[in-house]
């Protein structure tokens, strides 16, 4: 998995319009799908989009910006406090961009594992923020977190395959 110094790293670029459309679609799915599918409550489409494009662009600033933007929008569309998802997704976007420079990401296994790790990091960030800031934080639910990791890991496998169609080599 670590990047070999002898094998060239594949660099891709994605059209900004694709990024915007993907972000919009993620937000729409996030707000619409849970009404129809109970399992969708565990899914985090904006998070998966953040992970994918941060890994793809390999730029930390881009990862931070994308994660912050999607997170804030997600907060704005929810009934929670604005900034919770923004902080968590900004951290994930930064970490994903950092990881992209260190790991080979073309294999499915690598992507799945990394996706699972970042989902876990995202969930832990949310829990930490809630415990730090809220007077009465929700209880820590490790089973729910584990479930979210599995579900989003599997979803990421499918989503990343779809988004791979829109990338071009740099």
């Amino acid at each position, binding site marked *: 998995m670590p990047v070999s110094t002898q094998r060239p790293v594949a660099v891709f670029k994605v059209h900004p319009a694709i990024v915007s459309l993907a972000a919009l679609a993620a937000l729409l799915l996030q707000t619409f799908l849970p009404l129809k599918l109970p399992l969708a409550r565990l899914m985090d489409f904006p998070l998966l989009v953040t992970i994918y494009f941060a890994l793809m662009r390999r730029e*930390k*600033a881009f990862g*931070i910006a994308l994660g*912050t933007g999607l*997170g*804030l929008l997600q907060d704005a569309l929810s009934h929670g*406090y*604005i*900034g*919770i998802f*923004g*902080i968590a997704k*900004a*951290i994930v976007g*930064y970490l994903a*961009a950092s990881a992209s420079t260190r790991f080979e990401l073309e294999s499915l296994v690598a992507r799945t594992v990394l996706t699972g790790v970042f989902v876990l990091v995202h969930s832990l960030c949310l829990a930490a*923020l809630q415990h730090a*800031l*809220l*007077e009465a934080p929700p209880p820590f639910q490790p089973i729910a977190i584990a479930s979210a990791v599995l579900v989003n890991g599997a979803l990421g496998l499918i989503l990343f395959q779809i988004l791979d169609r829109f990338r071009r080599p740099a």
Partner: protein
Amino acid sequence: MPAFISRHRSFFTLLAVVAAQVLLLSFQINRNNHVRLIRYWAVAVFDPLERSLGGLMNVSSNAYRSYRHLWRAEQENQELHIQLVAAQEQIQRLGEEAGEAQHLRTLLEFKNQLAFQTVAAEVIFSSPGDITSSPGESSNAIYIDKGSDSGLTSDLAVITPEGVVGKILAVFPHSAQVLLITDRSSGVGVTLATSRVQGILKGGSNGLCGLHYVMNEEAVNRGEALVTSGLDRVYPKGLPVGTVVNVGDGGIYKTIGVKPSVDLNRLEMVLVVLKPTPTEQQALNSAR
């Protein structure tokens, strides 16, 4: 520092973004009693600082106040000390004046009782010891502040209410030298108050006098008082002279030590007995 920041630019960017969103959250989240989190944090940050500053100001203010109190107390202490010293000096002076006044009153009363005229004089200094005195012995002559301008002449008796002091040895215009009875060259005609034995009192050593020419057969007791006999025609009769302190038999005469009744080391005011006029002398003779 700028190089470090630029090397880790993306990380610091992440920190800035997270901090901004935390700030945004703090404006939304309420703590107990509907206090916004931002206000809660602001109070939490500034409260210790304000308490510390307040405490520091209190300490400084108290320290300054204490210093001022101490400084004022020190000033007051110095003033009181000066006043105390002045008061003590005044007390001492008044005490001395009172003592002097009492002494003068006693002297005046004594003077008024006397049948002869006297002139009061102040002892101004004592003359240095001469070759007849032993080293360390006090002087046997004093100087008084009255002289020929006050009618004094030589060989006048000098007395105090306690007794005989001596006689005038030399007279100057404004002062006079007095030979004390403790001087070896001095001589006073005396009578023992009890046995009525007469003798001559001469100066001795160590501040004592000696009574001479008293036969061994005469009975002389220790503690017996001596008075002037008047036979020397210098000292009026009946004035206290001293007390017998030791008695011993000699060859023919007794050796008698006499302690003068006057403390000759603490003379301040004396009376000089003036020569009586013929009328006064007649009155004195008939009184005897």
